[in-house]
């Protein structure tokens, strides 16, 4: 072939050669001197963090279907970031970390993101300090923080310096915890400090095809000999279920969009209320679907013991039905969500009987505690919805420390100082009722649906309430069997058969009597009447009026709540 002599090239011969001459943007060109030289150098420095990266590095990042930090910033906001310390580091390239102030939806947000195309986004002493400065700034100005983590960990050549860098960042982040909220996106493969740091933040969002954790599979293999994929070790499925990740999403774009959405529900800092949003959804809108839902459930063959999905009740209450669920993949027997009611952000904590009867176990207790603490710190009022048969008993739960987990939930609720309402949907028994935002624990208002079954104990309570009756019935059994046997023998039945038959009859009688007592218990005690009589419930609310009643009461409570940082002594335990 004649091609032999041809060398390949990617140069378009028709394109004029690129201009290398520099002029100050906007200035007419004229003869240049040392001043222009300085200007050019300055301009190059500004561009350096973006331009100095080799294309191979960017391609590597893109090959993994990941965006560069600059591309991620653009998804967060169409406005250009105000980059801080852009030439930090001895290569003047920003040292593999971008920190900036970004305007998102008109709000100032402090943002950081590892630049994986530079030194794999690793941390050394200097950029640990850079992170700390951003955190301090966020805390000082009272603006929320978004982190885009994509770091290989400590920069090994930096030695102990890298570790110190992490320590400095850890400390700074802890110091602003509770002052400003933070949202952490987990991109790429973060291990060690790269995992701890983001988890110090308020919320962690993890997309698919990412890993974070103590160490990667390689180390696990070498230390424990275990073969495990990154996905199985620290993928979104693992962290979504443990609550280490609050939200799991499909990809990076979804993570960033979710972060922005989440931001719309949380305040800038602990001194102010979350953003108010005028609503066109009338507060007196009837909540018909709650009625439909309950009717369908309670009129079904399994009657009042039918589980139902509580999210529809939350949906019905919120403005236009829009709400935002947190930790949706974990401990689904409780739903924690942000929503708006009459424009005000409200936190919802609702037992979901559709999952495991709504029983509170270690996971759901911690999930509630975590959410309630956040709302409490950041001036977010809470509506609790109760429909649980209680704490989950058993060996497994005890060994996992249900006492401590349940206590954690209880304490978090006792501590709440923001407006708080309890709405009892159905089941509210015993310890679960006692620890779940009732009047004595500090509720501002307790409301109940007519379907409420507030009692000291669930159906098993008949053993205590009707102790005497039961003793009498059971005591009569022996007599019945004896008499029955005698009668049967009289009629000519054989001894053993007569006894068996009599026992059967007695057992049936007993079952009937117990059922009758069960029904009596349900009728007499499993209802809201006692609660109303004792002032444990303020009033009954109809399922169709939920939005109006809750909305008006919440508005009243908020009129008399002044947002501010939490005061008072630090309590033991969290």
């Amino acid at each position, binding site marked *: 072939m004649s091609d032999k002599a041809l060398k*390949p090239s990617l140069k*378009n011969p028709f394109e004029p050669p690129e201009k290398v001459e520099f002029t100050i943007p906007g200035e007419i060109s004229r003869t240049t001197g040392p001043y222009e030289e300085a200007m050019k150098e300055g301009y190059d420095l500004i561009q350096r963090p973006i331009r100095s990266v080799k294309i191979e590095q960017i391609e590597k990042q893109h090959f993994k279907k990941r965006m560069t930090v600059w591309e991620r910033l653009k*998804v967060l906001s169409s406005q250009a970031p105000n980059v801080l310390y852009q030439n930090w580091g001895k290569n003047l390239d920003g040292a593999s970390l971008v920190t900036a102030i970004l305007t998102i939806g008109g709000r100032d947000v402090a943002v950081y993101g590892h630049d994986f195309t530079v030194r794999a986004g690793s941390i050394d002493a200097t950029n640990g300090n850079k992170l700390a400065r951003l955190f301090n700034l966020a805390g000082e100005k009272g603006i929320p923080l978004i982190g885009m983590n994509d770091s290989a960990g400590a920069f090994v050549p930096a030695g102990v310096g890298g570790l110190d860098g992490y320590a400095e960042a850890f400390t700074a982040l802890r110091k602003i915890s509770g002052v400003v909220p933070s949202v952490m996106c987990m991109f790429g493969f973060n291990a060690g400090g790269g995992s701890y740091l983001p988890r110090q933040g308020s919320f962690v969002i993890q997309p698919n095809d990412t890993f974070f954790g103590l160490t990667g599979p390689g180390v696990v293999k070498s230390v424990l000999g275990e073969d495990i994929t990154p996905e199985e070790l620290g993928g979104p499925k693992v962290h979504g279920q443990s609550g280490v990740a609050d939200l799991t999403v499909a990809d990076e774009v979804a993570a960033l969009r979710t972060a922005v959405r989440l931001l719309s529900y949380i305040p800038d800092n602990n001194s102010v209320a979350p953003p108010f949003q005028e609503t*066109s959804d009338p507060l007196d809108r009837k909540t*018909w679907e709650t009625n439909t839902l309950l009717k369908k459930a309670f009129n079904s063959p*399994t009657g009042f013991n039918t589980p139902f999905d509580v999210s529809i009740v939350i949906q019905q209450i919120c403005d236009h*039905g*829009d709400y935002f669920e947190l930790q949706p993949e974990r401990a689904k027997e409780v739903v924690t969500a942000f929503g708006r009611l009459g424009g005000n952000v409200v936190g919802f904590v609702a037992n979901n009987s559709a999952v495991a*009867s709504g029983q509170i176990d270690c996971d759901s207790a911690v999930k509630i505690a975590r959410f309630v603490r956040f709302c409490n710190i950041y001036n977010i009022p809470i509506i609790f919805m109760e429909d649980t048969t209680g704490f989950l008993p058993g060996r497994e739960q005890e060994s996992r420390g249900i006492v401590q987990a349940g206590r954690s939930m209880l304490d978090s609720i006792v501590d709440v100082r923001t407006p708080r309402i309890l709405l009892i949907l159905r089941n509210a028994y015993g310890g679960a009722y006692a620890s779940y935002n009732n009047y004595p624990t500090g509720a501002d208002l307790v409301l109940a649906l007519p379907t409420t079954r507030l009692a000291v104990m669930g159906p098993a309570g008949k053993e205590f309430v009707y102790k005497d009756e039961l003793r009498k019935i059971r005591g009569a059994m022996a007599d019945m069997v004896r008499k029955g046997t005698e009668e049967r023998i009289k009629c000519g039945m054989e001894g053993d058969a007569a006894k068996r038959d009599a026992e059967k009859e007695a057992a049936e009688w007993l079952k009937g009597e117990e059922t009758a007592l069960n029904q009596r218990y349900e009728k007499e005690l499993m209802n809201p009447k006692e609660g109303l009589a004792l002032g444990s419930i303020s009033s009954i609310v109809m399922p169709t009026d939920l939005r109006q009643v809750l909305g008006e009461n919440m508005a009243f409570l908020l009129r008399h709540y002044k947002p501010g940082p939490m005061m008072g002594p630090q309590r033991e335990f969290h």
Partner: protein
Amino acid sequence: MNDLYMNNPLIHRDRRLGQSASEWVRSFACEDLKPLIVCRGPIRKEAMDVFEEMGISHYGILLSEKDSIVYANALAPELRQLTDSNRVHRVPDYTGASKEERVERINQIIQIAKDNGYDSVFAGYGFMAEDEEFVASLENAGLNFIGPNSRTQADAGKKDEAKRTALSVGVSVTPGINNVTARTLVRKHATRDKLLGLVKSHGLAVDATVLNDKTLSLEDLADAILYASYEKGLDLYSIEELSAQVQVEVANMFREYPASRIRLKAIGGGGGKGQRILGASLLTAKNPTDKQVKEAAAEAPTLVREVLNEVKATGVGDNKNVLIELNIEQTRHNEIQLVGNGEWCVSLGGRDCSLQMHEQKLLEISVTQEGLALAIEKAKKAGRKAEVKALESDLKVLKRMEEDSTKFGAAVGLDSASTFECIVDRDRYYFMEVNTRIQVEHRVSELCYSLKFTNPKNKNDFFIVESLVEAMALLARHKKRLPKPERIPRFGAGAEARLNATDASLSPHAGGMIRYWSKPIEGEIRDDQGICLVNPDTGMFMRYKVAGAYDSNIALLLTNGEDRLDSYRQLSKVLGKTTLRGTDLATNLEFHYGLVNWFLGQNVMAKPTTRFVVPYLTLIGQLKEEAAKIDTVYAFIQMKKAYAKRMAEQFPDDPQVGKTMSQIIDRKGILVTRPMDRLLEDPHLLSGWLSVNRKNFTIEKGKVIWHDNPFVILSDTYEYLNMCHDPSAPAADVIWAHDNELLQKGLSFYATLSGRFKLGMHEFDKLSALLAKEKPQDGFSAEEWAQIRSAHIGFEAGLELLGMLFLVAENVKFWDFKVEDDLEVTIPTHLHDAELQVRMKKVLVPPPATKADEVVAVCGGMYYGQEAPGMPAFVHEGMHFEKGQPLYIIEVMKMFNTIRATFSGTIDKIIMQGSDGSIVQKGQPLFKITPDEKFIEIDPKEIEREKRERTSEYLRAVL
């Protein structure tokens, strides 16, 4: 921000006739109409919009409890528009589950209307819209039904009556039997006297002239008697007797029409409901034996029951007539849109709805006389004789259908909108039925014609109606006062794709959540039930749970164009630009995109039959199976090696050239493999891509030869995949910036070069011939020429890989499935193989596999095998269960949790022997089962090895 969604010039306009300067026009105002909308789906939102645009302020909607409580994350979208809760009325569902419930629902609707000041009812294309009883009840209650009156419903809506009416006005109908109930009665009471005895003994009110007419056939007499019995709510025959008669008639028809199937249609059915086809086993039998016929006909009784059940006509006194029709196998499904006021009747062209699956329409396109005439002209000019002939035949049929349909419409006193449905077989058409309601695809016709109503006294005094819903409201309000309108051509063509919640094999897939839907583009009509109405407060998209409580339809996407090609191109653009994101979400968007492009690559004037889709899907499955064997990263690395070797051979003394080449190839890595991976992952996208590129290559001696510039094709491919450079889109969703830079650089090079040679960008054969010459062309200097040729090699290097995609098609004989010159579609016979179809369905959507051979208790608690005492058990041995089916209940702390199957399978043995209420422990085995799909562990290394082997074979054809 919602501009094109909220204000789309194609569908939104001010329709307030009361605002007109003309007194005559003003007299047709409808502002005082107070309609209650009793249907759901996209038509509900459309009616709300149209009524508002007409200035109707007092309209209300029904919200069914069945679907409203499934919007877990937002209120029903319509409520974002209609915030006045006094105009939203709850009903358990729209039609009732039984006959009794239906009657109850009808009364409830009337009550709601009366209590809330509505004077009319709009039923869209809901089941109620075609219910004669419903319409009659409304009329009796003094409510205005926005749709055909009950007389029309009776004459045209019931399939048997419609067929008789059709015959009487000379409309051709499919061969079959429309009076099987009468025949049943005659068989039971075989003489005139016996029949008359029935009248007496039951005290039936039959017209005396009928009874005395001795010339009347027994069957006609029986029919008259039957009608009287329905009036009285009596059954003169049992379903068993009817079924037996149907079986006899079916057997006779099988003998009369060998190698055919037979269709049973309950007279109240529609939209695929209440219909069954039998006789598949006879399709290949030219001379069926008696035994074969008997066996095939034996299915009839079961099917009769099924169809009657589906239309809820099993009660005492229900008309249980079933039409028995020859099933026309190779058919196209065409329908004519009709509008009338009882005195006049106008047709608005036709719609071809042949592209359907399991009787559910997927893609509907307009057929108009103007459009066909234009297409004929074009084909003539291009010298495509076979096409001209085919189109001319179509035009003739269409003309006839339109003429006959208006005759029919006038005969039944049609006073609203209806559809005249036909099947077209070559140059003949058969009338099937009339849908006495507006149809889902009505907008296709709206795009083609508008209605011009002119003052009979002054031809300059007129108004134009572009919406059929608007026309229906006008007709309901002003009826006979409306003069006969003139139909005005609006756009040359319209097309509609039904966006459904179905997976890649088009099976329903409900339960997903839509989290994001890109904004409509210009020229797109998106009828989505309001899903894209953003949160009115925040402007954010509101998540939408695809519940599928009633059907799988999510939205209707429509486009228009000057001709069919244009409307298809526009539809392709709309589908391509649509991004739907969500969780557990599956839609047929990709299917549509692939299909529309398949036609664009073949011929949009094609005449596919109703049997197109299943074999097409089978082919798509084969594409997927083949595509899965390619590893693009491996291919890329191998190619890079091959280039290194070639450079080393060509430039043994200059290692720098090899290095340069290696760098050039590296730049192409993501640029080339990323779109390839997208296409290989989704066979629907691949199908469309292959079709539009089918003329851009040939395979000669096992090598792919390009006839279009791969570099330009690559750029087109990014556009096809909606991944063009867009600075406002997230970087991850579009071409990466560095890839775009290179792509643009190359495009600019080829644009300049083609310009110099006065060639188009796609005239690659000529360009490459020129570039092959060593002698500088077109006055370029030797140095320039060398640079140009170097650049050509540089830009094209690495793009060979794209050719592997053609080979995938070649290997599955993709091109054998094609549109012929006479517009008929050739479907390779092997794609009709039922076994292959089933296997490919599984390739498209692998069913959940499990290693388990037991079902175990999910948690500890008390076990129940039935929902409540006295109710049937959930499972029994030998039973097959589907994924999602309830298997048992576990009671935990007095709460009854229904546990559903996570995969499908068969119950071999029930291990759980305890009675209801027995305690089970977590993990305790309950049933022994055999899963439908057993999980088979395959060594990933083995898969990788096979993939590489196969990829290497592919590489041989392109390197």
